[in-house]
């Protein structure tokens, strides 16, 4: 085999070997595709009706536990009705008063003003009753989530053996899309708001569990040992010393839990049957009353901001404000409610912003009339020149209708030939890996993500896994993807992969650039930071509204919504990584005579690489989460399957599609984490 030795010496690194293998498999697929169609499309004979099996199996199981669940549902419904009654029948003056008082206690004048003005806006918007309905759901589900989360957190902390399992389950729960929770619950509990309640309690528990565990683990060993030496029992140590010491971290959990619950409650509105604010958004969106839906969305955002900032203040150790003022505010509001009972209008009769909604409708209408053609041009060029080729490949996307000419086989040959020449040039310069990756990229664009041969995808992902952390990850990724293929959801998974991939790529480039800019200029960061804070507070659902307003239903709107939501972590982590390079390294570089740009390129960027990769990882997870929500405004792929399953109460499809989504997220997560870990090790961190 002497002929192989130059090959071996050329492929002297893992990356080169993996890239070469992928190129080789791609070439084989390309050449053999006309003769062996099974190489490209997984033979349908080999798919297994997993969805049906799950439906049948779970159906039987659900039938047996249904009575018990219906009873739980009845109990919870009772609690919810009580919370609902309390919030809706309490005069709005008192609700606003109490919120203001709590705001004062937590953060003084500023927070009190936020609470007061926020709720005043809600009142004036005319969505008071709907908002209180939503709030009632949150009020019942969050205590459940907090209890559940705390219990899980303590359990994982106390029993080391359980910890690993709990952490794995929490990881998994984070990757399962929100809609996927709903279908099985729907079957168990029947239509109605209780499903939303339970879904949000389940969805909001993991952040609490995580933070309780983290907080307990971070309690200083001195403190723990002092508790032991004071002669406390284990329970005393835990409840009197360790939990109170961990309180700040636990409050971070409460904050995250509240936000998760609010987000889920609003998403759960798609089930319907409850007059809450999420339903209002959905309804107006369907009726294309964008002004109204914008207003309702704004109410949600205001709610989210008030809840987030107030519970965020809980997690900050700082002085609390006088309780005397708190009582004064509450008493004053009670007095106002009693004395002015007849004078104050009922909440549901108020609606000051109807005109605003109309004028928003009007101006959006005007805007789209005037600029409609430019918006369309923008949308169409993005679709025709970027998204469509990526989706179905240059060979199918380039038509006289879109590009002005017909793609031919000769053009493909030319593209490949140019690719080979460039790759050879790169290899000659010693950048073989880059050249091979370029070839892979050209192949993907020419063929289109959704028409990639399954063997090529599996080999590609396997190779990535191998480079990122080794054989075990490689095998795991291939097996998990194989599962999707066998279940018959492969085509949809590729559709999801294509759209989220395009969005993640855009986020990486755009977010990376913004992060770099924010790292260089404090002025830029002063502008970007509040925007990021804002985007992270807005519930997923609301992102759809502006996209719908300007670009109507379709893939492009979904694409934009995903980018708007998923770009934030990329910006934050990039900046954070770049600005936190240790001072002694910067000083060493400065005294070596490096210019600012040289420091950025040679020192800051390599040092920040693991952090930036973690940001990319978050961006990917965010993109998948949004992808499912975006199914509401017209994406194809797994998100749509999950949505359809919800509509038909098809628990089998719901679970398999949800699992497929989770698998994609999990695989992407592990791959990027692997690369980040490898970089961290390379830096000796």
């Amino acid at each position, binding site marked *: 085999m002497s002929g192989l030795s130059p090959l071996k010496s050329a492929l002297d690194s893992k990356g080169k070997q993996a890239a070469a293998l992928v190129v080789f498999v791609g070439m084989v697929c390309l050449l053999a595709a006309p003769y062996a169609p099974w190489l490209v499309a997984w033979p349908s004979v080999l798919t297994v009706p997993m969805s049906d099996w799950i439906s049948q199996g779970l159906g039987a199981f659900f039938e047996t536990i249904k009575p018990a669940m219906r009873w739980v549902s009845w109990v919870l419904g009772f609690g919810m009705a009580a919370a609902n009654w309390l919030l809706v029948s309490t005069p709005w003056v008192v609700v606003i008063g109490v919120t203001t008082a709590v705001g004062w206690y937590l953060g003084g004048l500023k927070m009190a003003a936020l609470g007061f003005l926020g709720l005043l806006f809600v009142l004036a918007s005319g969505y008071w009753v709907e908002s209180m309905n939503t709030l009632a759901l949150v009020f019942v589900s969050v205590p459940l989530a907090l209890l559940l989360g705390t219990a899980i957190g303590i359990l994982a902390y106390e029993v080391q053996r359980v910890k690993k399992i709990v952490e794995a389950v929490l990881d998994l729960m984070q990757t399962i899309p929100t809609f996927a929770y709903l279908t099985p619950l729907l079957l168990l509990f029947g239509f109605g708001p209780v499903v939303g309640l339970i879904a949000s309690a389940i969805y909001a528990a993991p952040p609490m569990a995580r933070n309780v565990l983290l907080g307990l683990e971070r309690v200083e060993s001195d403190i723990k040992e002092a508790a032991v030496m004071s002669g406390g029992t284990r329970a005393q140590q835990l409840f009197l010393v360790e939990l109170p010491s961990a309180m700040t971290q636990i409050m971070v959990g409460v904050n995250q839990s509240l936000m998760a619950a609010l987000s889920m409650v609003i998403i759960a509105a798609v089930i319907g049957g409850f007059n809450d604010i999420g339903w209002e958004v959905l309804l107006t969106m369907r009726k294309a009353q964008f002004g109204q839906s914008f207003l309702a969305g704004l109410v949600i955002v205001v709610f989210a901001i008030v809840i987030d900032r107030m519970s965020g203040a809980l997690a900050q150790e700082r002085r609390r404000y006088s309780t005397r003022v708190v009582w004064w505010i509450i008493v004053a509001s009670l007095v106002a409610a009693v004395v002015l009972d007849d004078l104050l209008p009922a909440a549901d009769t108020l609606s000051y912003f109807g005109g605003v909604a109309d004028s928003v409708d009007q101006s959006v209408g005007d805007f789209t009339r005037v600029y409609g053609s430019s918006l369309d041009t923008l949308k169409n060029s993005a679709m025709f020149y970027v998204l469509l080729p990526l989706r179905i490949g240059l060979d199918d996307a380039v038509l006289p209708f879109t590009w002005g000419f017909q793609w031919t086989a000769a053009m493909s040959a030319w593209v490949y030939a140019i690719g080979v020449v460039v790759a050879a040039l790169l290899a000659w310069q010693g950048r073989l890996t880059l050249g091979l990756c370029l070839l892979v990229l050209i192949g993907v664009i020419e063929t289109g993500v959704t028409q990639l041969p399954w063997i090529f995808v599996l080999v590609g992902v396997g190779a990535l896994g191998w480079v990122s952390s080794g054989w075990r990850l490689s095998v795991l990724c291939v097996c998990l993807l194989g599962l999707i293929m066998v279940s018959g959801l492969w085509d949809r998974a590729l559709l999801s992969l294509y759209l989220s991939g395009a969005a993640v790529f855009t986020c990486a480039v755009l977010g990376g650039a913004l992060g770099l800019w924010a790292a260089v200029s404090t002025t830029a960061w002063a502008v970007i930071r509040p925007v990021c804070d804002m985007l992270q507070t807005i519930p997923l659902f609301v992102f759809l509204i502006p996209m719908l307003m300007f670009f109507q239903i379709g893939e492009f709107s979904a694409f934009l919504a995903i980018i708007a939501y998923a770009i934030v972590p990329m910006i934050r982590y990039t900046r954070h990584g770049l600005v936190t390079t240790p001072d*002694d*390294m910067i*000083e*060493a*570089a*400065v*005294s*070596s*005579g*490096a*210019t600012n740009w*040289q420091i950025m390129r*040679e*020192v800051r960027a*390599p*040092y920040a*690489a693991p952090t930036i990769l973690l940001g990319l990882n978050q961006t990917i997870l965010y993109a998948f989460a949004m992808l499912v929500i975006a199914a509401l405004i017209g994406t194809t792929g797994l998100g749509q399957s999950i949505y359809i399953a919800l509509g038909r109460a098809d628990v089998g499809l719901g679970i398999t599609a949800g699992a497929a989504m989770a698998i994609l997220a999990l695989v992407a997560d592990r791959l990027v984490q692997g690369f980040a870990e490898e970089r961290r090790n*390379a*830096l*000796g*961190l």
Partner: protein
Amino acid sequence: MARTDGPDAPAIAVDGLWQVFGDGARSALSDLLKPGAATTDGVARRLKEQGLIPAVQDASFSVKEGELFVIMGLSGSGKSTLIRCMSRLVEPTSGSVLMAGEDILAASKRRMIELRREKLGMVFQHFGLFPHMSVIDNVAFPIKMKGVGLKERRARAMEVIELVGLGGREDAYPRELSGGQRQRVGIARSLAVNPDVWFLDEPFSALDPLIRRQLQDEFLNIQATLRKSIVFITHDIGEALKLADRIAIMRDGVIVQIGTPSEIVLNPVDDYVREFSRDIPKGRHMTLEALMEPVNGAPDNGGPELRTAMTLDDALSACALTFEPMAVRDGEGKVVGLLRPEALARAVGEAQST
């Protein structure tokens, strides 16, 4: 200030250097420093009253060509800030730092980069190595900044790597090296551009005592061949006495004394400085020059050969059997003083009893 290019011009001349931290430090200081204003102490007090922190107060000294100048002080005495002012890693509030006649505090940003690429080298307490670069890439980094090609800069980097005794480890990464080896990389990197002025900020403080001594000795060897103008920061009086040609002692941002090691040990200006040299065996650091009675051309009585630069310990062992006063010669062999054995015995005894 006028340029003072001449054969005897100091390599570095620091004059009236202030570093004040806090908002509005610059204007507050320039108000207080108007001609005819208060003393250094008075100015510092006024600054503190305004909530500002005077980390370095009116530092003035000069370093000769090829001299090893040590700045010594406890932590928080301002010595690290002072060296950062001199290398302009922080921007001093007032004063001037002349290197080869050029005030580097007035240098433009561009000129500063140029200076760092050509004339200045710096070693850091915690090494400041780049974790993502191998030893050779770390060492070659300053040369790379100049835009020198790969081959040339690697060749130069190898030279300094050999110089610090790390030959063979050039492809290792910082995480694979011991503390002592890491600082050798730091030293090699600072020497890569063959600087005229060499700053070392507590380079051996983070190392174990044994390694520290070894590196100190090697450092002296390197300096013996390279003859750089050095500013060396330490908090260890033993290290200062061992290495320095001259020492500046700092306290609370003020230089309280500048002198040769034996001046510092023999004639401390105040209790603070005395406190430092308290546990130092005087016999090992004090030289005969400080003890002898100066004479001019006194007779040579043929006793053991004594030189002005000899330490007391060495002299003691050289004339253990003599009771006569003996001639002490200067560096050229001319007799310049007489040493009485009883004075020697008393001095060594005193040193041991304190």
